[in-house]
């Protein structure tokens, strides 16, 4: 893993700065994403991980400007730096502009969680893939069909010439997810956003799809943003990780560092509460309580009511702690992190 050492050599393909996405509902303002900053480095798989409601999906939807009312991007920037092109702030684009239209499904594309609902039931998979090609590329219908068949073959669908004329209901869940991946990759995007791409699948199929994503990333050099709650998938697939809790990033860094030596108490708790295949049978260490509702985000550090290291008058006061550098590549948001480090020797 020598590429990991040369941080300066890997440029950022997508830079998110202080992103804020709020939802204005009857229960009040819901801060789904509240000051998220991270960089996606070119050609790598960056994982956003966290429990349900932590804002990982909302963050990814913002990149394509898919946030719908009552939600709104209220602050921050998402700067996309295409290869050899001019950097563009996605949040500043007009909703109906051609530029945004060209990004969606063109330069930046997305794989959704549910392969059942992400595909139209009344069009053949070939038609659905061709639609994306014809929208973004200047080719004839026959050429588009050729490309669709080629792509279906590339994602490991046997007999793509036959499958191209089938409807999604004629395929299994794993096959459908392959079609969704083919559709996302057919325009050679620079950024692929994969929102829980394997969550709805069985383990053996999940393993196949994970292998496919990794292979395609290696072959095509696509930068991937992987949204998941499964830490096993993160460890096996990602290069960089950002852990989210209640709309904020609490810790980020290279995958090996985070999984082997987590610094933030939330990441530590999350990893410890995993029943692992290697572990001896014992009581599972768990995180106290449950994730609070987004309408009642605790003051100070949002994690302090569940944190085993929380200290009165330090953790529950003031603004949420900012991300601080721990090393070149790692940051964590915890005011007591140096105390904890010292206590652990």
């Amino acid at each position, binding site marked *: 893993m020598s590429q990991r050492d040369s941080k300066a050599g890997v440029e950022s393909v997508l830079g998110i700065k202080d992103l804020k996405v709020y939802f204005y509902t009857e229960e009040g303002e819901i801060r789904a994403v509240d000051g998220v900053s991270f960089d996606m480095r070119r050609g790598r798989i960056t994982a956003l991980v966290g429990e349900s409601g932590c804002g990982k999906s909302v963050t990814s939807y913002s990149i394509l400007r898919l946030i719908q009312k009552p939600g709104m991007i209220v602050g921050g920037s998402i700067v996309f730096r295409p290869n050899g092109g001019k950097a563009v702030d996605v949040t500043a684009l007009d909703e109906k502009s051609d530029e945004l239209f060209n990004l969606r499904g063109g330069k930046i594309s997305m794989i959704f969680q549910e392969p059942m609902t992400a595909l139209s039931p009344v069009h053949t998979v070939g038609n659905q893939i061709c639609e994306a090609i014809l929208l973004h590329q200047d080719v004839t219908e026959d050429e588009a069909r050729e490309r669709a068949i080629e792509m279906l073959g590339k994602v490991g669908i046997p007999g793509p010439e036959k499958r191209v004329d089938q409807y999604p209901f004629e395929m299994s869940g794993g096959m459908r997810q392959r079609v969704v991946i083919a559709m996302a990759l057919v325009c050679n995007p620079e950024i692929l956003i994969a929102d829980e791409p394997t969550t709805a699948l069985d383990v053996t199929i999940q393993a196949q799809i994970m292998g496919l994503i990794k292979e395609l990333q290696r072959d095509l050099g696509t930068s991937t943003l992987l949204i998941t709650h499964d830490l*096993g998938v993160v460890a*096996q697939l990602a290069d960089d990780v950002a852990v989210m809790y209640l709309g904020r990033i609490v810790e980020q860094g290279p995958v*090996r560092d985070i999984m*082997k030596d987590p610094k933030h108490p939330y990441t530590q708790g999350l990893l410890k*509460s995993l*029943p692992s295949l290697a*572990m001896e049978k014992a009581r599972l260490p768990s995180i106290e309580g449950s*994730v609070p509702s987004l309408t009642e985000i605790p003051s100070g550090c949002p994690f302090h009511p569940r944190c085993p290291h929380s200290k009165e008058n330090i953790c529950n006061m003031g603004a949420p702690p900012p991300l601080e550098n721990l090393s070149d590549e790692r940051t964590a948001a915890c005011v007591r992190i140096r105390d904890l480090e010292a206590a652990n020797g």
Partner: protein
Amino acid sequence: MAEPILQVRDLCKHFPIKSKGFFKKRVALVKASDGISFDLKRGETLGLVGESGCGKTTTGRSILRALEPTSGEVLFRSGPDEVNLARLPASELKPLRTRMQMIFQDPFSSLNPRMTVGAIVREPLDIHGIGGKAEREEKVAHMLEKVGLKPEHKSRYPHAFSGGQRQRIGIARALIMHPELVVCDEAVSALDVSVQAQVINLLQDLQKDLGLTYIFIAHDLSVVKHICDRIAVMYAGRIVELATTEQLFENPMHPYTKALLSAVPNPDPDQPMNMELKGEVADPGNLPSGCAFHPRCTVCVEGCRSAVPELVKQPDGRTVACHGVTNMGEPTPTGGTPPEEGKGRGQCASPQEGSRRKE
């Protein structure tokens, strides 16, 4: 712990697929669970694992007669009597319902949104007419406390609770009758990791306190490993391997078990996964001939295509349904490579001996 609380013998649940139109001709038969046999000891936790569509839920429900089994026996021992649940008339079944309960997967759809938590947990007592009003309320309050909720929660509605708390409500409802046998159908699958650990701990504590016997249906192998004493791996409606948790995880014998274990993503990035299984789960309406796993199997031999393998007892006590394992103690590839040496598994298990599991 001596006698089994439950003996399942050759349990089958088949669903006919009927054609559309007037005659409703039977066009296919889905063998959702087919020839399931196992014993369950009192206080034990048996895991049923497999991928979606393998029949683990159907098996769980057929055991409790939530589904009418097509054939087979389910011998349930409650006190001194042993009854065959599969053949019992409905009138005799109802009182037995208090002895066995189910915990469901989805904490959002398994609770009636228009009933208060108190009413949900009290409903089994109402149905079976147990105790007076005050006694029931007291039991409900006690049960809520036992699963980690507060008695004052009973006047609230399910929507006011998080996923983990709702699952606790479902557990309280299942346990208020003090059942002996509880079928947990994917009871922790819908929960977030941090909450999942709490509910697993709760289930284990309650098992110890109340002497429960669990059938734990799940697809997440790491959870199953944590909670189960023995594990039955299912594929296409049949049990392919039944072993103690240690045996299964240390030395899986059936090729499908091996593939399933290797497909679990390890949270340690230095332990790369290496899953070689190709293809997809067999279509239950149109199973391959012989061993249903043979089209995906890497060690498939000639006989696998024609004959369905029986569960055969192995020297270490587990049972495996695989021609490769039955014939040479360890499956060998078609090429005839000798079995891996140095594993201390030289003896052959005679195929005649104990072709059905007996204990």
